């Protein structure tokens, strides 16, 4: 009889405040500045989305990524042309990190004809296959088998690409998590699983929901590497994901990366947040804001001055404003499209056209 005791296997937690890593991982100045700009695009886009929502100028179920920008941006910066990602209900950050344009994103959030999904999807379903963005997803955990499948497609065809899979701490309790990762691990598929542990699944804290301190520990169940990174440290995030992506591309199989992060906003727009204190949020904003952390790092590295960063901010705000104008000026979808695009090459009854 052999006993497997949990204590034997627990790992040190990497959570808490970022300890700014100054390894720039060979990234050029312009790459670093692009990463900053991407994070800022997410932040400013969503700040504006929140305002518009409160003014009832857009609607639907909207989940903000503010506070978590380092995760998507660091991770997607490690990808190449042809790589793909799957995303979640909290998908704006992933979209922007994959290079989607703000204007058709904003239009989609407004349900307009010019949106990425012609208004049929809304915030929870933005997809742009051209950008390798396989879709936000309204079902918790559902992206995990899907990105595993994309990686399976690469494996079957020998295409040298990788799939990145984003999901939350809550999703790590879904059956889809287990089946998707287990299957990928067995075939050593080129997929990297990134758990965005922002401390909460809707109104329940990860401590309530999950009987172990670190979700990365679950990698052990699948015989794959598990890594814990502080998500507000974009350089650490980039480094961890690049290592995992290289490994995946080399045929060595998946990695489970747990990004410890925090959402500064409510679960969805309109969330009264009875489950946490203002102090907790304020503390995270003060210590774990990926923009603040990276801004300091960029200055420390001599890559950008506060003036440079302020200029970028103005450009980004301007771009966001144009996306709002674009969205608001765009028409509602024509009623005719209600029954189109249910099938490829067939009418709404499935009859071949």
């Amino acid at each position, binding site marked *: 009889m052999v006993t497997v005791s949990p204590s034997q296997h627990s790992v040190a937690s990497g959570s808490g405040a970022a300890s700014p890593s100054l390894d720039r991982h060979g990234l050029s100045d312009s790459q670093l500045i692009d990463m900053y700009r991407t994070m800022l695009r997410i932040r400013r886009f969503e700040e504006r989305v929140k305002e518009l929502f409160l003014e009832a100028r857009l609607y639907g179920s909207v989940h903000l990524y503010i506070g978590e920008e380092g995760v998507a941006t660091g991770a997607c910066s490690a990808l190449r042309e042809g790589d793909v990602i799957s995303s979640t209900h909290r998908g704006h950050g992933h979209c922007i990190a994959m290079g989607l344009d703000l204007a058709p994103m904003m239009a989609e959030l407004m349900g307009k004809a010019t949106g990425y999904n012609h208004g049929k999807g809304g915030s929870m379903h933005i997809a742009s296959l051209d950008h390798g963005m396989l879709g936000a997803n309204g*079902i918790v955990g559902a992206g995990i088998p899907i990105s595993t499948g994309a990686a399976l497609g690469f494996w079957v065809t020998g295409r040298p690409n990788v799939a990145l899979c984003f999901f939350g701490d*809550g999703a790590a309790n879904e059956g889809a998590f287990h089946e998707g990762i287990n299957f990928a691990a067995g075939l050593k598929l080129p997929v990297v699983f990134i758990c965005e542990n922002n401390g909460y699944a809707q*109104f*329940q804290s990860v401590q309530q929901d999950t009987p172990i301190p670190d979700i990365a520990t679950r990698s052990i169940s699948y015989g794959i590497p598990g890594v814990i990174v502080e998500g507000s440290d974009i350089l650490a995030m980039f480094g961890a994901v690049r290592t995992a992506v290289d490994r995946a591309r080399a045929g060595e199989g998946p990695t489970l990366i747990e990004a410890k992060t925090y959402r500064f906003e409510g679960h969805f727009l309109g969330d009264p947040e009875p489950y946490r204190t203002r102090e907790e949020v304020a503390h995270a904003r003060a210590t774990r804001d990926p923009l603040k952390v990276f801004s300091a790092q960029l200055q420390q590295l001599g890559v950008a001055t506060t003036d440079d960063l302020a200029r970028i901010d103005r450009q980004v705000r301007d771009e966001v404003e144009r996306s709002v104008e674009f969205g608001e000026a765009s028409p509602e979808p024509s009623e005719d499209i*209600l029954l189109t695009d249910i099938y490829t090459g067939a009418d709404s009854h499935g009859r071949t056209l």
Partner: protein
Amino acid sequence: MAVLSVSQALNMALREEMGRDDRVFMIGEDIKDSTYGVTRGLWDEFGPKRVIGTPISEIAIAGAVLGAASVGLRPVAEFMYMTFMMCAMDQVVNQAAKSKYMFGGKAVLPIVYRTMAGAGRANAAQHTQSLEAWFAHVPGLKIVMPSTAYDAKGLLKTSIRDDNPVIFIENKVQYATTKDEVPDTDYTVPFGVASVRRTGKDVTIIGLQRMVEIALEAADHLAEEGIEAEVIDPRTIVPLDLDTIIKSVKKTHRVVIVHEAHERVGFGAELVAQIVQHAFDYLDAPPARVANPNVPTPFNRILENLSIPSAAQVAQAVRGLMR
């Protein structure tokens, strides 16, 4: 008597039944801080062993209530959106619904699966699908679809006291907007008894859940044109009160069925089949269906609205039958 919303009525039913019977407990995701208010306050009142928050694990929830019922409890599970039940279909259908029969009758499984269907809040396709037809296709389940706050309370209490797995469907728009008088007394509403919400002689309109309101609205318009519609709310579709429906159709000779689920193989098809079988010679026109077209629910609210039945469509369908 107080005028309550559907969510308040449901909350009252849960509180009364939990107070009445120790074996009743609730389980689900985020039921402590209830999004739509149905479970509000119950955690404080009954504590964490009666109001059990779970991880985001629908299979675990659906199976856990079956196991708990097997050892004598009377669980009430909550799945926020009905589409999430697709994550747990095996436990609900292969396990909970079939066990009694497979076991030769031995199991008594008093389970309530509460869930929320319907469109109207711009939640898009993965949070908006009405699946009553799926569950009605499964022997062993009972399917409850209240359309008023009064019925919501009375039927939820009946569901909790029923010894079978019950799919209790709530409508996301009605939670807050549908309000009516709800006694704070211990009353129940029986299964399998339709409610005739309006009497009329010219046409029968059968509506499911929120579509009863649409049917009543249509009936008002039609009345102005001199067409008197009888509006029937079956309230439970399994068991189905076919007698009330057939009696009405034999009187009116015409029937329109309105529901929110997709038309193709929706419960409306079953109603048509049953009505035709039992009242063929009384029909002056083929039964008409007004239901969601076969399209996933779009996000855009104009499109979303077009994807569910309207009172105008129902009235139009009635007029079509009167010619």
